[in-house]
């Protein structure tokens, strides 16, 4: 029978592996922030400074307490003396409005995807919120610019991670987390076919879909040797898959680490060039190497490392660099944002540093030196970002929708036309001017809303939101 210490070591090793392979939680973070943004400000008790005594020394604190007690005693003595001398009368205390603080209401549903292919035609995914597992998810299409919506598809489960449509809207692909479900249409959504993943891809770790036809999944394979992954490629929207590579994760994805991992994000610029952003780790067994991305130039068959020089006088390495996936605005220009984070070994909150941008003008073969950028919001990690061109980006990580036109140096708020207490959850821009925004709107019963802009987000016009899963419209 296994000795206790050996069992404990085995348990800790299992825990490390569990942590390493645990999926990202960016989605739930955004939903939590969206939900609290809808709520009124918290009570006075919350509003008090969070470090009321943190800066005070023990002596100062004790003196202050004694002083307050003496003052209270004095007030009581004086008050009691005065009261005895006053004639008795009934006093009605003034009525003051007490803010009612209640739990932020759960929105009836969340937007989980939004994509327009023209001023008139677009799709939106709505996933019901509940506590019995996410979903079901409903897919709606509009052909009149958002005035009316037709439900096209529904499934039990979370919303799509990817919604890709061809320029004319005929070909479409909806892909859930881990490749499930995978729906394809070739007739603008009149009919949707459910596609299957390759049989060998039993544990999809990474996936990316370049358009409505081409995509990749990287999946662990059910083999006797653990840690072997296959790269699977489709060019017909998941109808057929080709395994293009067999990778040893511990060998190919362990740069600077003692063991390999496929945790991170996969993105492709075109059929050949792709990147994986590695998760950042702390702990022992980590070699101090420069911050890096994994890169492929042959459609995922082989992977190498692309290093990023740390900004001057900034100690950035794989343990402290948190990358957003590269964003490309055309086949040559792109940007990578990286935030400096320090994750403690064990429990505790990460310490967040500055964010830097690396830009490319040759399709990611070379990247510029790091340029420090300012990211609106709380500064706690990389926000959700829409890159419209090399210098124009939108972000909506908090309740603010903000835009920069100089590559992150200056930002302006784009609140014009959006009603107060509107929280954007999905953004889709066709070009720098024309975009759509799906949002949750605050009220006692939060509702869903859709907006459109034709001036780069400076002004927004409300569209009709589709009904809530067959129920009456929500906003």
């Amino acid at each position, binding site marked *: *029978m*296994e000795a*206790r210490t050996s*069992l404990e070591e*085995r*348990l800790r*090793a*299992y*825990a490390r*592996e*569990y942590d390493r*392979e*645990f*999926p*990202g*939680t960016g*989605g*739930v*973070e955004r*939903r*939590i922030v969206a*939900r*609290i943004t809808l*709520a009124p*400000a*918290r009570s006075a008790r*919350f*509003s*008090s400074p969070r470090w009321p005594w943190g800066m005070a020394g023990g002596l100062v604190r004790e003196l202050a307490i004694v002083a307050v007690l003496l003052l209270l005693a004095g007030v009581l003595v004086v008050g009691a003396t005065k009261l005895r001398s006053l004639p008795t009368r009934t006093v009605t205390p003034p009525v003051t409005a007490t803010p009612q*603080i*209640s*739990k*932020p209401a*759960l929105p009836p549903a969340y937007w989980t995807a939004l994509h327009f292919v023209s001023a008139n035609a677009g799709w939106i995914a709505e996933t019901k*919120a*509940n*506590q019995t*597992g996410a*979903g079901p998810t409903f897919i709606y299409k509009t052909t009149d610019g958002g005035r009316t919506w037709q439900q096209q598809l529904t*499934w*039990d*489960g*979370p919303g799509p991670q990817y919604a890709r449509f061809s320029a004319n809207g005929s070909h479409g692909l909806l892909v*859930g987390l*881990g490749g499930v*479900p995978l729906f394809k249409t070739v007739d603008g959504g009149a009919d949707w076919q459910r596609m299957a993943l390759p049989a060998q891809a*039993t544990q*999809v770790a990474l996936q990316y879909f370049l358009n409505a036809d081409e995509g990749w999944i990287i999946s*662990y394979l059910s083999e006797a040797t*653990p*840690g072997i992954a296959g790269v699977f490629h489709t060019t017909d929207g998941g109808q057929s898959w080709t395994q293009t590579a067999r990778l040893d994760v511990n060998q190919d994805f362990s740069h600077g680490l003692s063991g390999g991992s496929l945790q991170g994000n996969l993105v492709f610029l075109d059929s050949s060039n792709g990147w994986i952003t590695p998760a950042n780790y702390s702990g022992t067994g980590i070699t101090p190497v420069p911050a890096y991305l994994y890169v492929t130039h042959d459609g995922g068959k082989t992977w190498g490392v692309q290093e990023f020089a740390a900004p001057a006088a900034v100690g950035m390495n794989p343990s402290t660099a948190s990358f957003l996936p590269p964003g490309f605005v055309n086949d040559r220009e792109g940007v990578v944002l990286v935030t400096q984070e320090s994750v403690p070994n*064990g*429990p505790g*909150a*990460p310490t967040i540093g500055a964010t830097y941008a690396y830009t490319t003008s040759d399709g990611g073969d070379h990247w510029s030196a790091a340029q420090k950028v300012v990211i609106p*919001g*709380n500064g*706690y990690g990389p926000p959700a970002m829409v890159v419209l061109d090399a210098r124009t980006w939108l972000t909506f990580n*908090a*309740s603010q929708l903000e835009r920069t036109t100089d590559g992150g140096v200056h930002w302006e708020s784009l609140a014009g036309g959006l009603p107060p207490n509107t929280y954007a959850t999905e953004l889709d821009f066709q070009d720098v001017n024309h975009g759509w925004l799906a949002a949750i709107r605050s009220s006692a019963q939060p509702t869903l809303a859709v907006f459109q802009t034709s001036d780069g987000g400076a002004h927004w016009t409300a569209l009709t939101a589709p009904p809530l899963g067959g129920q009456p419209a929500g906003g």
Partner: protein
Amino acid sequence: MDAAFIMKRDERQWFEGIVSSLARPATKFANVLVHDFDLAEEIVQEAFARMWASPNTPSAEIEFRRYLYRTITNLANDYYRRRVRRSTSEAAIPVVVNPLELVEARASDEAMQAALNILGLRERQAIYLRYFEDRSFAETARIMGTRQVTVRVMVHRALGKLRRHISENSLSDQVAI
């Protein structure tokens, strides 16, 4: 910009920072309790919403985390209670994909994975805090709202169960020749 708005924004930014740093460990914790990634996300979201609304929510992060974990545990308990009530009257909701199963399947120590699944909710909670988050017995007890000695006994018994389960299953895998 008026002072009230600045305060409101400042509070939200502080809370968003807490969400950013605790959402992942909280989801991992919830996952271990309910074995369903989507449900864990819903529970974590609900727990944060309650924390935001409650006037009793502590503002120091260490206390906040304890309070959050206890809220998550309560919600997980509610879920199991509801599930027991519902199981006699409703059909099971089909789950399309459960990323937790994928996570567990990727973990190569399948014997340990199977053994952890046999533990009760409280035992799983104690084992998670002690070994997945490296908490001391004192801190684990604080989070679980129980005495330190109770946690020590619970962990001891849970380790015994794990050891027995792993041992029995490794023996059952052997084939006599």
